[in-house]
Structure formats: C-alpha cells, structure tokens
C-alpha cells in the first residue's frame, strides 16, 4: 500500500516535469542572459551597473549617452546657456507621457532633481547634483538650472538623473522612506516599461510603443539572471536566450564555431581599467589623521624603480594570457574607451628587460649578496614587494603570477597574496599599508573622475590609492574642471595623461574589452559597428527586430 503511494508520487513528479512548451501567439520577446541582477529598481539607492542598464530603458533624462561617447538631448528639445556658463535653460518636449498615462512636465524634472539633491544617502546620484544650485520650472515646458560653478560637463552630470513622476514619488520623498521605496511599479517615460521584476531571477519589460522618440520594434525584453558566465554560454548555444551581455574569454573560440551565433568584442560602454597600484606616498603626504600607516616599500617612491618595473612588464603577454587577447595595452587611468579624451599620442614604454636592469643598476639598486634580489642603494632592505589583489578577481591571480616572473628578471622579488576586497580597501587607502595592489576602476563618461583620483586632495579620502602628489598635475586638474571650451579642455586633459604617464603613477596593464554574443537567427539590427560594444543598451534594444 505504502509503496503504491510512493509510486504515484514519483509518477506525478515526472508528469509535472514533462509538461512544458508554453506560449504561442505571444508578443515578440527578446531574451537576454546576464550574470547579474539589479540591486534595486530605485534610481536613488542603486549601485550596480545592471540597475543602470534597466534605468536607461525605463527612464529618460535630459541627455542620452550615445555609443560613440557623445551626448544628445533626451526629454529636452533645446538648450541655451548664459555667457558665464552658470545658467542653463532647457525647453522640454511637449506631449511626453509616463507609462501610467500621466503627462510628464518640467515640474516632474524639478521634483526629481530636488529629490536627488536633498538625499545625501543616495550613493551615486546625489553627487551629480553637486554643482546644481537650484532647479526652477517657470512653466510646464521650461527648466532653468543655476550652477554654482561653470562646469564643462553638464551632460555627464545630468545623464543619469532620471526623470521620476512626481505624482508617485511625492509620497516617498521624505527621510529613509525614499531609499527604502522599492519602486517595483517603476513608472517612467522611457521606451520600455516594467511588467514584472523578481530580484535575482529576471526583469521583464514591455515596449512603450508611445515613446516620443524611439518606440521599440520588439514587444518585450527579458533580462534573465544566470549565476555563472559558463552557463550563459550554454544558454545561448541551446537557444534559451537570444543575447548574452558577458562571457568568459575561454569560451569565445567554441562559441564562434557555433552556427547562428555572432561573438563581438570591443571597448565596454562604461569603460574600465585594470591597474597596478604602486604605493608611492611620501612620509610628508602620509594621511596619519585619517588612519595612514604608510608602510610602503621606500623603493617605490623612486621614479626610477617604477619606470624600471614598467619596462619589465610585458603587457602583451599579460593580455594574451590573462584575457586571451581580448584587451588593449594600457597607458594611464584614462581608458581608450573614453574616445575623445583618450590621449593616443603617448608612446608606451617598450618591454625591455635589459634596459630595466640597466636603470636599476644606474640608480644604485645592486644585488650585493648574490641572492638574485636587489637591495636598496644604502643596503637597508631588499626589493621584496608585497603584491595583493581582491580575492573575488578572476584575472588577478594569473596576472600576479606573470608579474612575479617578469619582475624577477630584474631582481625584484614579490610576495603574492589574495585578500578579501573589504580587507584590501582597509589596507589600501588611506592606510597605505601595502606595496603593490592589482585592482581597477570603472570610468565615468567624463575624464574628471579618474584624473581626480591622482590628485593630492584625494590622498586623505582614500581615493588616491598611489599617494601620488604633483602640484602641477593638481593645478591642471582644477583648470580642466572649469574650462568651458571643449578643445582647450581636451588639451589640458591630454597633458595630464602625459604627466601621469611620465611619472609612472600606475602601471596600467590593459583595458579589458567587453565580449558579448547574440543569435543571428532570432533578431537583427543590433548596433555592432561602433568601437564600443553594449548590446543591452537602449540604443540597440529599440532598434532590433525579429529575423523574418
């Protein structure tokens, strides 16, 4: 009797698992696989880039960021600014509607900007309001922004400040209720609207066919979360998803051999940079009041040593081994993905072990005791550097092994150690309790951000992780921050990259590329002929249509 019950139970499980093949007569759905998930749908408290991808689809803002790095107007149809660059007047498009049918007016924009400015506990968006003194909406189609300083990059300040509906957010505008607002309804004006969201599972979006500029051609878009990149590749192969936003370089060759799949690589939309951080903080600059310990190896304060290390670093080999070739050699913290701002006239230090050895010899770092490790000129200590990296990094361990071999060729010994990312932050800066760290940055569309982390003012805050301090560089930084003429500003920014490069502030091994892939038998029209690759961006998703 009991066994019979078991048998029925098993049978039921089998039947349930076998019934499938759902759908038919449904809207055209694009399925995108990614190895992440938004942390929240609330633009105020979001941190992860996946959240911003969704915001870009569901919301509009004053400007749009194009794939070539330029900006164009979004909800505004025209803009004028005063001669001193302090007052910007935007004419807002008429007839723009939120997904719930309510009209979007300048009042909503003013409300959103005021909300972002009022909440200091918004981790990112609050900082974009730093230069906005006031936002006024004299009528339904005009926004007047008054700035505290004439800044050259208003576009990159406003591009992530999404327009929220006042009629919904006004009930969540005060105190901690704002960051805790889950915003599952996510009413915006963008080309897509939310249908369903399940955290760490999927984001299900539907087309907003009434969008004022770019109504999508497909019916629905689904972002599905996969815990690992290898599974993503498998899901694309088997056709469970139509596009994947990331994949391991090791899978590129096999996936390229697959029929109906195209693999793309290029600079990421939000460019990133891998860096080798050399602790060069001097005792005078040690931020002791902010917890500075400054235990770095003194040799790294000597430009000759840093230069020799740069010459001893075979970047191409790092790219070939660590990234399987999917990267470009790096110069400074400003990645090639920033396009216009990237100084491509700088000539990289050639990989030359003999030259590096000669430099160290001439600077007095001799190996006096014959153990193949050089000592300080005064013989006080050998050139043994601690090399740390965040333990969640996949690339860093391989990178560290290679660097260890390369630097051993010039008599520099390394002690390799993976460290918990949080512990590493505590060790890094402003504590400066390290010699070398392998880490990286994500860049803003504007170069100011990553130039800023090399200024003296950021040493105590911990964002200047090398301890580099150069008054000339600092002065140029302040200059470019208020230079309104684009070409002049570019000149300053290029000059700063040259200075940072000559001083060997960092050794930048590479700029990693984005690798994405899509099925050619499902959708067509993906934007693939730009230097930057980001198929999950709104720019592609409003253009694609089903393969006939």
């Amino acid at each position, binding site marked *: 009797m009991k066994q019979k019950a*078991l048998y029925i139970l*098993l049978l039921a*499980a089998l039947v*349930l*698992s076998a*019934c*499938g093949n*759902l759908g038919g007569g449904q809207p055209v759905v694009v399925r995108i*696989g990614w190895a992440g998930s938004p*942390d*929240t749908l609330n633009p105020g*408290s979001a*941190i*992860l880039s996946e959240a911003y991808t969704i915001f870009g689809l569901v919301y509009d803002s004053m400007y749009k960021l194009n794939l070539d790095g330029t900006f164009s107007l979004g909800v505004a149809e025209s803009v004028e600014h005063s001669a001193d660059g302090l007052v910007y007047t935007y004419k807002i498009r008429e007839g723009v509607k939120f997904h719930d049918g309510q009209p979007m007016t300048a009042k909503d924009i003013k409300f959103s900007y005021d909300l972002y400015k009022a*909440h*200091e*506990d*918004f*981790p*990112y968006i*609050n*900082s974009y309001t*730093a230069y906005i003194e006031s936002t006024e909406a004299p009528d339904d189609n005009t926004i007047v922004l008054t700035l505290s300083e004439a800044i050259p990059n208003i576009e990159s300040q406003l591009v992530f400040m999404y327009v929220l509906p006042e009629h919904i957010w006004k009930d969540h505008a005060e105190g*901690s209720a704002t*960051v*805790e607002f*889950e915003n599952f309804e996510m009413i915006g004006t963008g080309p897509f609207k939310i249908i*369903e969201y*399940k*955290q*760490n*599972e*999927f984001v*299900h979006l539907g087309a907003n066919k009434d969008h004022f500029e770019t109504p999508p051609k497909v019916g629905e878009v*689904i972002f*599905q*979360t996969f*815990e*690992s990149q290898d*599974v993503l590749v*498998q*899901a694309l*192969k*088997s056709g*469970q998803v139509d596009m994947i936003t990331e994949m391991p370089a090791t899978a590129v060759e096999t996936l390229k051999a697959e029929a109906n799949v195209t693999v793309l690589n290029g600079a990421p939309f939000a460019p990133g940079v891998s860096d080798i951080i050399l602790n060069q903080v001097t005792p005078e600059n040690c931020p002791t009041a902010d917890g500075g310990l400054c235990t770095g190896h003194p040799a790294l304060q000597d430009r000759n040593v840093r230069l020799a290390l740069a010459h001893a670093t075979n970047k191409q080999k790092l790219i070939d081994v660590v990234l399987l070739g999917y990267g470009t050699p790096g110069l400074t913290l400003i990645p090639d993905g920033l396009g216009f701002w990237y100084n491509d006239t700088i000539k990289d230090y050639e990989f030359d072990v003999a030259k590096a050895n000669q430099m160290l010899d001439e600077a007095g770092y001799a190996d006096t005791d014959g153990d193949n490790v050089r000592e300080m000129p005064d013989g006080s200590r050998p050139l043994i550097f601690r090399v740390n990296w965040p333990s*969640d990094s996949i690339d860093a361990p391989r990178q560290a092994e290679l660097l260890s071999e390369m630097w051993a060729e010039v008599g520099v010994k390394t002690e390799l150690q993976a460290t*918990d*990312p*949080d*512990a590493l*932050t*505590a060790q890094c800066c402003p504590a400066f309790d390290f010699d070398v760290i392998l880490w990286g940055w*994500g860049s*803003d569309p504007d170069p100011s*951000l990553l130039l*800023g*982390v090399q200024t003296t003012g*950021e040493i105590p*805050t911990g*964002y200047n992780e090398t301890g580099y301090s150069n008054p000339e560089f600092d002065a140029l930084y302040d200059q470019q921050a208020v230079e309104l003429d684009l070409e002049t500003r570019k000149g300053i920014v290029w000059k700063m990259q040259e200075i940072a490069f000559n001083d060997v502030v960092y050794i930048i091994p590479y700029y990693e590329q984005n690798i994405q892939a899509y099925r050619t038998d499902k959708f067509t029209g993906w934007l693939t002929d730009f230097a930057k690759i980001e198929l999950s961006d709104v720019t592609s998703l409003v253009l694609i249509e089903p393969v006939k």
Partner: protein
Amino acid sequence: MKRWRYLSGKISWALFTILFVIVLNFFLFRILPGDPARAGVRDPRLTRENIEAIRVRYGLDKPIINCFESLNPVKIGSCVVNPLDTQFFIYIGNLLQGDMMISFHTNRPVTEILSERLWNTVILIGAGQILAIIVGVLFGMFSAWKARTSLDYASLTISLVAWSIPTFWLGVILLFWGSNNGMPIAGMSTPGMSSYPLLTQWGDIARHMFLPTLTYTIVYMGEYMLIMRSSLLDVLSEDYILTAKAKGLSIFQILKDHAIKNAMLPLVTIIAINLGFTVGGVIQIETVFSWPGLGMTTVEALNRRDFPVLQGAFLLIAVAVILSNLLADLAYSYLDPRVKTE
C-alpha cells in the same frame, strides 16, 4: 514524569542555543574587516558626506555596544552610553519585535527577502530530500536483502560513487546534458509566466526543478542507502530474525514486520539533521542552477557585507537545525523506549 523532564530539558537547551546564536550572529559579522557603508561602492563620486549619510541610515554611526566603538579594527569607546543606543541592543530590540531591519544592499526589509527565498529553497531541497530518502532507503533495503551478491555490490558501488561525486561537478554535467535536451537550466520559472493559469505555472516550476532536484537526489541518496543497508544488515543478524525465519515467515514478512522498523532508527537522526540543513539550502546546487534560494542569498550577502541579511539567514538556518534536532530527539524518545530512561 521522566518523559516531561526529558522533554523540557531538551526544549530549554534548544532555546538556549537559539539565544546564543542570536548573540553570536551579531558579533561574528562585525569582526569581519571592512565597512559595509563602502562595500561594493569604491567610487570617488561618493563623498564623505554621502558615506556619513549612508552610515547614519543603517545605524552604523552608533557604537557596536557599550565600551566598543567598532570591533574591526578594535576601537574602545565610551562605556556610559545608553545601551539602547548601541547597535547590539537595537538589533536585539528589533528582533524581539520580529523586525530583522533593512538590507544594506537592496534596501528591502530582510524578513521580506528571506521569506521569498526560504520558500524557494524549501521546495527545491525538500523535493530532493524526499526523493533521496525514498530512493536511498529502497536501494538500501534491496542491498541488505541481497547482501553479498553481485546485485548488492553493484548498488553499493553506485551509491558510493554517487555519494563521492562533487555536487557542483555533477550539477554542471547534468546542466549541459539538460540544456541539450531542452530543459531549462537557470532560475525557478520562465519569466512572464505569472499571467498563465496556476497549474501551468506549477508545471513550469516543476520543469525548472527537474535538474537541480535530480542532482540533489543523486548526491544524497547514497548516504541514505549506505546507512539503511548497514543498519538493516545489523538487524538481520539478530537472533529474533533467526526465530522469525525458523517460524517459516517469508523474507518479505520478515523485512516488513520485524526488521525495517528497527533498522530505521539511525536513519531518523540523519534525516532530521539533513532536514535542518535543507533550510540553509545547498549553495553549490543553487549556484549552478541560478536557483534564487537562501544559499545563494547568503553568499551574495556575505560578499556585500549585508549584515542584516546575513544575520537573518544564519538565524533561520540555526533555528531550523536546532528544531529538527529537537524533533529527532523527541522522535527517538518515542521510537526507542531505551532513550527515555537514560
């Protein structure tokens, strides 16, 4: 009377353990290095004011407990602060009201997150457990019955191999096999299913459950099989079984009426303990199949120093393990009269 003493002793011990876990949970995570206000956000755009505002929002600006400003690095603070104004007692106070506070990472109430995830894990691992128990016990009985024949050795080998396979490896192999055969390989439902009838939705979840459940069953049935087999063999060598045989009972009757009941005792312990861990989820299986359960949530929370979620998840797991142990103890006292008198 004795029974009551035994019972109340067990229950009060369980309560004490839970209390201990509540306290330990709090300090365990605060000994970890790193500032949750900055975890995941290492960005120059984040000004000091922003960080301070975030710390205030999460209550991280308050001292950990009287005399201690922070635990890593250890910073001694004033001892004369109001205890109700320290992180520890705020945590205890909230917990007493059933409030596990707000997740640092998603800004959602922890109770809400955990109740979603708990259910996901329970249905996945629950199904796996039940199948593993059924298959394992049947296999074990079969093996013991056919002891020392080639059939026994074959099923013994299969069980040993299944038990020693690394879970994630088996998961990945099954994942590739399944994806080539049209099985869903990630998540617990097809996005966009919520508009379909309930039965279709359940069918969809069952399809998603197939591969992870299969993985779980294969890995865990070995354990049950081995224990069932050896326990049953022990029983079968007892004198009363010989008596039963002498009475002319069939092997089926002997197993059913005399052997199995006694052989199940050690299995009760294992099942109870494993059921407790069910709540914790099986991190590897959840990760391979992107199953949005408690295990995955715990790993993610750990990476992001999401203390409230970690505290909640650990508490939930601890309570589940303690309760199922208690249950096992109670079941034992009922099943095995010898236990009561000890």
